[in-house]
């Protein structure tokens, strides 16, 4: 690795993130795949090691992990300018397309065919949310006798929200405190690392 890397120009950086943001349908792993292909393999602006480390740190971030990843990689490539160009380049074009698609759907929302299609899309949206919850629970579940604590947190949060016993935000804060005190045995693992 050369000691001094010339930072990419804002225009080149914006073009790279524009490609990443608009060519990865479905988000998640497909976006991650595009980031790696463009920044590590195609341009070489980021080393594989830098990418892996930034990815592990981004998993601790609030909100969309990919935004944190774009920010961390952006800083690595071009400082504060890199952060702004990377995040805006990934998010703004994709957000415009998302809003336009929503507006378009709104135009045809009352059509009987749209209503029928949405009657099938609803169960899929619900099923995806449930499936994602199971996927989220899987890597954090510990094996062995401590798994009972992890399961207790999941079941409690589930029951409290369904029964309307407390506000969502209260559940999150209580779980954060509970975790900091009782679940501190291991760091979040990178078991489903993007390299695997």
């Amino acid at each position, binding site marked *: 690795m050369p000691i001094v890397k010339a930072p990419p120009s804002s225009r080149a950086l914006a073009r790279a993130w524009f490609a990443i*943001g608009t060519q990865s349908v479905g988000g998640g792993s497909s976006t991650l795949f595009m980031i790696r292909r463009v920044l590590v393999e195609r341009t070489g602006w980021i080393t594989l090691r830098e990418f892996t480390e930034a990815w592990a740190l981004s998993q*601790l971030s609030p909100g969309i992990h990919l935004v944190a990843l774009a920010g961390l990689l952006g800083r690595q490539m071009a400082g504060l300018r890199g952060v702004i160009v990377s995040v805006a380049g990934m998010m703004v074009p994709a957000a415009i397309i998302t809003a336009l698609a929503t507006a378009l759907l709104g135009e045809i929302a009352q059509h009987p065919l749209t209503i029928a299609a949405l*009657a099938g899309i609803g169960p899929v949206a619900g*099923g995806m949310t449930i499936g994602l*919850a199971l996927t989220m629970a899987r890597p954090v579940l510990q094996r062995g006798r401590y798994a009972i604590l992890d399961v207790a947190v999941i079941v409690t*949060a589930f029951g409290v929200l369904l029964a309307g016993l407390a506000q969502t935000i209260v559940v999150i804060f209580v779980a954060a405190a509970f975790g900091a005190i009782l*679940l501190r045995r291991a760091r*979040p693992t990178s078991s489903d690392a993007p390299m695997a």
Partner: protein
Amino acid sequence: MIEQLQLFFIFLKASALAIGGLASLPLLRADLVPQYVTDAGIVQALAVGRLAPGPNGLYVVSLGYLVAGWTGALYALVGASLAPLVMVPATALARRWLMSAWFGGLVRGVSLATAGLLLATGVTIVSAGGTQLWQLALVAATVVVTAHGKLHPALMIVVGGVVGLALGR
């Protein structure tokens, strides 16, 4: 003006307190349904978020649009872009702190609780959308496909739409 600020704060808060893109859903649903949007709106936003390019967490932009047009979409975009960026100064200033055992536990606690909250939100979306037999079969199939991660997520939305066209009339 106050209501606008409140709306922006709802989106910022949901992104700041959730770990992961879709994890903001239970928080947003708690603040937006039923005053601003219905569960049917949530379904539309989730579907558009999956079909449109970019991170899945961008479903919030669709939700923002449904709530308050382009202004709402802008609030959602800014909120979703700002919250995760706390990691940029955090990794520079407090790297060791981020790697501490208690912070790891905190993230773990929030992730587990979010899994439970998402599970409950998923059940709510399902029951709001209709529970005919073919719809429940779609739910089951989607859960399996999502948990296995084999099929492209956008494809499942298309499948749901086609099945809906065939059976939902």
